[in-house]
């Protein structure tokens, strides 16, 4: 079985960040492998260790700078990586899920995987929509928010548990080929070993643009436009204590005393 794992490099923002227009100032930004995708990679690697997956390919839409993140996924055990980028994307916000999906679809058509593992959501945009959108796009079956996957795939069926709200899990069978969006906690993502990191440097990282993937540039136009970005206005009248820990801890312990928690 061939497994395709989507890997997004997400931006993270540091404390005290500033917003300029509809962007966060560069100096407060760093990047990371999307937390949810880390769990998807681990699930694929476990499938390979058990002899179920023959090949794990990762796909990332992103500029050259995100190759470090891609190498991380390779170091954890993926066999090779595809990175898609095109000049057209330089000034497109990937806000419209259909654009991401259209690009990923081209890669799925190239690779023809049996199983596509994605994250429930990206930690930066928090859309939570790309997996199901893509599944419909490529005509695969799907399940969203999977927190357990049986590894036997009897008769070409994936048996999963979907995590619903308030501690309820749903048992579902899905015919392959399928897209699963993976929830955190499904496994324990490994750290890359030194050997893995060394090997990752030699693994195949293939870059493709829209011409390679026969994607029509004209179809890449976001129907969503980001017009404002700001810090949420606080409605609360929170009492904030800051400064020396001795002092703030005392203030809190006084409050707890008033409330009868501390005798």
């Amino acid at each position, binding site marked *: 079985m061939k497994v395709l794992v989507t890997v997004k490099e997400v931006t*993270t*923002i540091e*404390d005290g*960040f500033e*917003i300029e227009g*509809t962007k966060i100032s560069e100096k407060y930004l760093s990047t990371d492998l999307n937390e949810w995708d880390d769990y998807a990679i681990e699930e694929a690697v476990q499938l390979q260790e058990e002899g179920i997956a023959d090949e794990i390919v990762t796909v990332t839409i992103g500029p050259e700078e995100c190759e470090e993140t891609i190498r991380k996924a390779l170091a954890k055990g993926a066999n090779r990586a595809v990175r898609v980028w095109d000049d057209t994307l330089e000034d497109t916000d990937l806000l419209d*899920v259909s654009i991401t999906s259209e690009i990923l679809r081209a890669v799925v058509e190239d690779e023809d995987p049996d199983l596509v593992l994605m994250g429930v959501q990206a930690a*930066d945009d*928090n859309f939570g*929509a790309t997996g*199901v*959108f893509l*599944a*419909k796009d490529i005509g695969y079956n*799907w*399940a*969203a*928010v999977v927190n357990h996957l049986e590894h036997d795939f009897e008769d070409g069926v994936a048996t999963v548990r979907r*995590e*619903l*709200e*308030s*501690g*309820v*899990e*749903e*048992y*579902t*069978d899905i*015919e392959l080929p399928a897209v699963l969006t993976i929830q*955190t*906690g499904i496994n*324990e993502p490994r750290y890359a070993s030194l050997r893995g990191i060394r090997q990752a440097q030699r693994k195949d990282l293939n870059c493709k643009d829209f011409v390679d993937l026969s994607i029509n540039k004209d179809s890449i136009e976001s*129907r*969503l*436009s*980001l*017009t*404002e*970005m*700001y*810090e*949420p206005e*606080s409605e*609360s009248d*929170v*009492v*904030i204590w*800051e*400064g020396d*820990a*001795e002092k*703030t801890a005392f203030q*809190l*312990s006084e*409050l*707890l005393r008033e*409330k009868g*928690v*501390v005798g």
Partner: protein
Amino acid sequence: MTDILAIMDHRRGELRNVSYELITVGCQLANETDGKLHLAVINGAKEFAEKLNREGIDTIYTVDYGQEFNHDVYTQAIVQLYDTLAPKYILTPNSVNGLDYAPAVANQLELPIVTDTIDLATDGETLIVTREMYGGKIETTIELEGMAVVTIRGAKWPMEENPGDAAIKPFDVEIDEGALGTMVNGFKEISGGDVDISEADVLVSVGRGIEQEENIDLIHELADALDATVSASRPIVDNGWLPKSRQVGQSGKIVTPDIYIAIGISGAVQHVAGMKGSDTIIAINTDPNAPIMDIADYAIRGDLFEVIPKLIELSK
């Protein structure tokens, strides 16, 4: 005119509250543009349509097909409703099931989708959407023209309460059974675990700010000193540092203690969903912009590794 089609949320024989919020939002959008609000109850119990009959609704369509939730049935039914009713916006809950069909509907109808919205306005042409990013640290406004699929965040809007007299009509769908690629086989409820955190008066709750498993001891020590119970945000449970029964939030437990102390927890919406009903919320966090600050009554802006040992000392 801007007609709205709102898809009701129910699970295992029970209507979920976000359905009443969808009515509020749908009414507001319809009113802003002289449009009609239609509801769809797909695979729901008979009495749901009656229960949902609230002011401002034009028609409630009921679709009868199958037993359990099936995203392909939902997708096919919504597409057929859309073809008949031609609504401008399809509203769905941003629930786990909502996110299992809404993107597929958008894909099939070639409409843009915007998820987890917390505010919406329209002039009939442009939809102005407010949504968060980065786990609630940032808010954004997004504009889009034309028709769209929109998922709304639950427990964010008022629930429409006034009874109404909308017509209730069955809607016949043709379901392509060959295209149903998934089947639900049952459910499981996470067991109670060693303690029931929802019974506790004082919760000391720990998040990713604790950094390492060994450091959880510090939290246990504080809980002992305060005669409190330890709970946690999701990453702590995902890491296996505390059992699932200690998880507060959307996929964990809902708690309403007298005092909730959130230590190194950012306050993502899925966490807040489980603890915002607490009487007094106290946050200890290095980041003054952490969303938890917005719902806290008291907060220490500081390093938990400095504050907690002092607090333990003072509480003994």
